[in-house]
């Protein structure tokens, strides 16, 4: 045996599990850093702004070069004037609100209906076998296809609008929840079971929170489908009872051959759809993913 001439350190001899454990914890601790706000703004907000500016620039250029007739391609300024007109008439917000209220209340109803359906389909085998394929099929059927049938069944009124929204969003919400539940790791289901989570407690404490990322994706898609199908329904179905929403406004301007108004309608529809996603779904999704450590900050 080779002997060493270093004297054993008295400190090292007396280390306990607690000391070593504390040291390991300190060494292993995951350091989470939040990127500063200015960096976030520069990396996340600047590029889309630049893109919008670029589109406006190209649009203005196309107008200035007189590529086509003015009544076919008005300038950005003319569309802006159309917006100012609506504002002056005081109808801008009522038009947006008519559609937004319909879209949001229909979406909330779709969530209330779609969630228990999703839970049932995910958890009850015969229900899944029976309804699962129908839900997936409905999801790929554009719900505008229901408008003629809804008009015949329900008449040209709000019920038709809501029917179309529900048919568009309920399958997405339910399928999102089913996908979310299917993705909950079996290990977590087992650990829930060993803790005694059964029945409703299992749904509340294990299945639903575990399925939240997939469910949120379904909600997001459900909103996009609601909004799209609502706009289509408003375009197709005209009745004084329905009031003027964005879709109707768009169709009215077409009838007046007012291209500035048509473009304004398209832009407003786009803005509302994007705004709901940006102000509501994206922050919610980011929060959920960050809490679970599923969001890599520098990506």
């Amino acid at each position, binding site marked *: 045996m080779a002997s060493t001439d270093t004297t054993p350190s008295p400190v090292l001899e007396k280390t*306990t*599990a*607690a000391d*070593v*454990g*504390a040291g*390991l*914890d300190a060494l*292993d*601790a*995951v350091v*989470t850093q939040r990127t500063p706000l200015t960096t976030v703004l520069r990396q996340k907000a600047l590029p889309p702004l630049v893109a919008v500016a670029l589109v406006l620039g190209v649009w203005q250029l196309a107008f200035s070069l007189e590529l086509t007739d003015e009544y076919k391609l008005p300038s950005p300024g003319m569309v802006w004037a159309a917006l100012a007109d609506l504002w002056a008439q005081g109808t801008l917000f009522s038009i947006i609100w008519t559609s937004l209220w319909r879209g949001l209340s229909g979406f909330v109803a779709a969530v209330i209906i779609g969630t228990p359906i999703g839970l049932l389909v995910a958890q009850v085998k015969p229900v899944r076998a029976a309804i699962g394929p129908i839900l997936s099929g409905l999801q790929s059927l554009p719900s505008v296809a229901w408008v003629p049938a809804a008009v015949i069944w329900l008449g040209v009124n709000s019920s038709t609008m809501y029917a179309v929204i529900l048919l568009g969003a309920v399958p997405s919400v339910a399928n999102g929840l089913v996908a979310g539940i299917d993705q909950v790791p079996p*290990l*977590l289901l*087992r*650990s829930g*079971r*060993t*803790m*005694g*989570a059964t029945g409703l*407690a299992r749904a509340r*404490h*294990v299945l639903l*929170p*575990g399925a*939240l990322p997939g469910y949120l994706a379904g909600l997001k898609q459900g909103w996009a489908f609601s909004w799209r199908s609502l706009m289509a329904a408003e375009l197709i179905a005209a009745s004084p009872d329905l009031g003027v929403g964005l879709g109707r406004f768009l169709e009215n301007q077409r009838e007046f051959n007012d291209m500035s108004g048509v473009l304004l309608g398209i832009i407003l529809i786009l803005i509302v759809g994007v705004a709901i996603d940006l102000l509501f779904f994206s922050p919610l999704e980011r929060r*959920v993913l960050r*809490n*679970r*450590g*599923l969001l890599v900050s520098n990506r």
Partner: protein
Amino acid sequence: MTTALTTSESAASVGVLDRAPAVRISHVHKSFGRPGAATHVLDDITLDVAPGEFVTLLGASGCGKSTLLNLVAGLDKPSAGSIELPGHRPALMFQEHALFPWLTAGKNIELALRLGGTPKAERRAEAERLLDLVRLNGAHGKRVHELSGGMRQRVALARALAQGSDVLLMDEPFAALDAITRDVLHDELTRIWAEQKLTVLFVTHNVREAVRLAQRVVLLSSRPGRVAKEWRIDLPQPRRIESAGVADLSIEITDELRGEIRRHGQH
């Protein structure tokens, strides 16, 4: 001081127990698959664990250790035989921490308390006490992904203890940790086992770990899983995994384990 017991001796030693066992596994068989084409995984397993005893179940990969533990945990039913646990539903710890990533460390423990019926007002303090016990005071508000592997397993241990069971089933809980961290957790586990007077059934394929921890090592054979041999270990706790006593017995048990595995290569 160690004693090797043959299967028949161990059956006799069970009779010596003065209290009813905390876990009684009698003539348990387990097969998977359709009748006819079924694989026989566990074959006539009989094993009693006394209250407060620390038993490690040792065996090669695939010999049915997890299957047996799942049966004891009530996650699956034996094909034949019976498993009796007089107490509370046992707590089970896995190789992966199995903590809920949508909850903080503290809330994971509080959920176990809640499902076990602890009143709301007491949960927070009880969770703090359990975090203290695993030496993670201050980690209550930490997200699971912010913790290191060793810390996650300690939270998982605290959560298992929160279920209020005296019986703790552990399925290779430290297998994914590095050796230094595992060593520390061995010390912590033996301390908590003694302090809390737990009954532990600990599954591992690591011979030294089995000897480091247990009062009794039970070796399972493979395909089908049978109790091959048992050793009672009287070395005082806390033991060092590097110590001569642990090493000597590890060599003996490893030879036995290799013998069991070799039998499968011979036909």
